């Protein structure tokens, strides 16, 4: 998901619920964005024409002979004039694009600012817990990023689908964005699932090999001794779909309310999922948060596919 989408999605979400500031900032940003898109398209068509003219000029110069030289010269001068016009236009476009980009830069700052204000309002009202603001999400120190792994983000988008907006155009905009987001997420999940399946197969092959060795060499204690999960040491943590991981999840569900003891900081929980209910995040095991749990990945793919289906149906109507 691009940074732009990360910012725009919650912005759209908040659009219908908050004051005029965010709305106008969003409209200004979109208007500039549209102007940029239009200018870029025009610039591209001029550039294409420029290339075609260059190709024509080369051809004319190569085919020039005593009997057609004067015609070619006439044609070449026509091309030169057109080239000059195009160059002038490109210069104008570039200047305008530069201005719009700089305008957009300031508009996106306004947009962030407006969005943070909205979040602060929510925090004050208790809708969003403190510490979940965009600024806090972005202010992760480099060292911490290196030391701690990044959780994989597979939020629950059901709330977005159930969102009731007065303006149907806004809803359509949101659904279109969520549609492309879900498509990207499904592709991402599918790739992770494939990798995890390969890793699980390798882990099983390794466990089988070590069990054989342990049998040959009965004294090898770690190939034989089972732990409290009923797994041999070789299987521990390698076969993530073992029921043992289910136990771990249940244990923590029961211990809910003691989330700090679970080893997952509040900040990390917030970072994982801005949309999902916090209870759901706490219930996620380490394997789920890191995308190692195959069952979790499969469940998420089905969930996203069903959501996507619903969105497709609504947009087709």
């Amino acid at each position, binding site marked *: 998901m691009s940074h732009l989408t990360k910012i725009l999605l919650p912005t759209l979400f908040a659009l219908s619920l908050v004051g005029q500031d965010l709305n106008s900032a969003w409209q200004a940003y979109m208007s500039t964005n549209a102007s940029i898109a239009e200018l870029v398209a025009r610039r591209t068509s001029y550039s294409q024409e420029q290339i075609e003219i260059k190709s024509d000029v080369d051809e004319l110069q190569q085919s020039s002979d005593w009997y057609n030289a004067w015609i070619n010269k006439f044609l070449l001068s026509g091309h030169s004039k057109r080239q000059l016009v195009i160059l002038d236009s490109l210069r104008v476009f570039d200047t305008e694009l530069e201005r719009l980009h700089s305008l957009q830069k300031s508009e996106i700052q306004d947009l962030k600012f407006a969005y943070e204000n909205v979040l602060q309002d929510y925090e004050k009202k208790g809708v969003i817990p403190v510490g979940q603001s965009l600024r806090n999400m972005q202010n992760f120190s480099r060292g911490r990023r290196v030391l*701690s*792994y990044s959780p994989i983000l597979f939020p629950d988008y059901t709330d977005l689908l159930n969102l009731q907006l007065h303006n149907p155009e806004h809803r359509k905009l949101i659904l279109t964005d969520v549609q492309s987001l879900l498509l990207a997420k499904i592709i991402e999940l599918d790739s992770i699932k494939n*990798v995890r399946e*390969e*890793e699980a197969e*390798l*882990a099983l*092959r*390794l466990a*089988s*090999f*070590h069990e*054989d*060795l342990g*049998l*040959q*060499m*009965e*004294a*090898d204690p*770690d190939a*034989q*001794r*089972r*732990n*409290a*999960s*009923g797994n041999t040491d070789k299987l*521990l*943590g*390698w076969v993530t779909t073992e*029921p*043992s991981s289910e*136990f*771990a999840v*249940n*244990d*923590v569900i*029961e*211990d809910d309310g003691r989330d700090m*003891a*679970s*080893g*997952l900081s509040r900040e990390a929980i917030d970072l994982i999922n801005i949309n999902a209910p916090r209870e759901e995040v706490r219930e996620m*095991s*380490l*394997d789920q*948060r*890191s995308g*190692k749990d195959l069952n979790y990945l499969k469940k998420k793919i089905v969930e996203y596919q069903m959501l996507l289906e619903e969105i497709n149906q609504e947009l087709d109507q």
Partner: protein
Amino acid sequence: MPYLNRSNLCTRSIPKNIWIISLICIFFGPVLAYEQQLNLSAYFDSNPRENLDNIESTVGLKAKGLIRFNQDTQNARFYGSILGQGFLEPALFLDSKVVVNGELGGTYKFISGYRLYAGLKTFQKLYFDEFQRSGRTTLSASVKRLKSYKTHQELGMERTEAHIDYGTLFQYSDQRLFLDLTRQVTPAFQAELSVQLGQVDYKDYPARMLIGSSLIFSEIQNQQDVTRTLGIHVKHLGKLIWGTAVNYEDINSNSALAESKVWSAKLYASGRLSEQVFFHVVLNGMKKYYAQTDVLEITPYRDPEENIQNQLHIQIERVIQPSRVLYIQYSYIKNETVFNHWFYNKNLIETGIKLTL
């Protein structure tokens, strides 16, 4: 296997544990989730008798059958397996043997975040030659704390009864108290620290004392070892699975010749060479520092095949179908014989097929 004095024909029946576990697996297996495996292979062993000299090589056939079941309920899990393995060596027929390994166990979540484990495991080996045999049966129990996603703690104990019957019967019991601390450093990295306190009591095996350069057998004390072990194990998961384990064991004994300190290390790695081809490598190394190095001792209470000191194993597997796997394995083994400080070497090459039925 080493050639010791083999005199009496052993007529003892197969241990009761094996029968119990077999019956449970056979009768209850069909109603539970179970799996069956069959492995067939041929091997070349450069030194099957683990001799220092007069080395004879042989080829052999190996067949392994396994039935395993797992049953899960909301708070509990039960499992069991029975495994039989036969080694047939036509040229050295009397060295052929049968191995049986049985296991029963269960886990129970008795309090939220805590799990109780109990298990029974038995391993028996029977040689064709005069039905010489060895075996061990282990009872274990532990409590595991799973309050955190990242760290687990396990405290438990296990007791093993072992016997070696090569004409003369040697028996010993080994009890250990262990504490394992596991930390999931990242989703791909796991570190484990383990501490063990153990005691080994030998039956009818007098402690030996050194008086000057003379070896004296105690008339009142059997050998008793007290062991302290510290181990660190780090493993990495992912497309290449690898790990390393280092252990230190301090053995204090009332028998002067058994006093020693042991450093051991294990390195392993497994990965894919292509979509269907896997490789596995295991390297074991051990350095044993005896307190008394001048005296040669024979240790008949140990099955040398169970002794892991210096070993290299490399296996390449080719998955034909998920239920059919071809493999080839090379092993190099350099272990102590039943004599202290005396090492034998052997090379093993094995190739075969693993079938899941």
